[in-house]
């Protein structure tokens, strides 16, 4: 499940080219993006995100306690 989810989340935040940095923090992915407007909140929620917090180019995707695993799965896809 996690592998699929990482790919879906990556696509929903604009794909590899849009990522400056992804940092996991227990329950969330702190994503620093080139372009915050490329984030597809509906797709993130469909991928299992509990919530999305946006502040310009920094987007926090709330994924629950598997954030560390998902972040490393996403790193593997970059």
């Amino acid at each position, binding site marked *: 499940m996690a592998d699929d989810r990482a790919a879906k989340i990556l696509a929903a935040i604009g794909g590899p080219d849009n990522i400056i940095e992804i940092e996991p923090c227990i*329950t969330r992915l702190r994503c620093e993006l080139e372009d915050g407007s490329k984030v597809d909140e509906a797709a993130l929620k469909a991928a299992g995100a509990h919530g999305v917090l946006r502040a310009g180019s920094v987007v926090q995707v709330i994924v629950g306690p598997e954030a560390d695993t998902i972040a490393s799965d996403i790193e593997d896809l970059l």
Partner: protein
Amino acid sequence: MTLTVLSPVSGEVVPLSEVPDPVFAQAMVGPGIAVQPERTAGDAVSPVDGTVVTLHPHAFVVATESGAAVLVHLGIDTVKLKGEGFTLHVVKGETVRAGQPVIGWNPAEIEQGGRSPICPVIALDASAESLVDVHEPGPVKAGEALLTWQR
């Protein structure tokens, strides 16, 4: 079955809604309660018997044998401290007892650094109704019961 969740720190029990972070305040990862810690150096203890499944310098998750996972977060935005000021007493994957010291820290230093040292204690993926006997707002000691999680 029911699971008693202990307070990881000594301080004042406050509602989760007082935590200055929307993820916790809006219970996005689960319901719970928060403790405004005493401003003295000390250890945050495990809230339950279980395994340390996630361990950061500023936060940890302990999962019980039956799969109930409790998150303790030491302060808000403390991930940015990169571990400075936190001392880990356990390693990830270690079995811990409720009340066992997990992380040493100093809430006063966190506050001096301009961050809130408040400690959300979250029953991950629980329903709000499953938490009962929740400690009333007021003083609590580390290791005292904070709430009961009905599972």
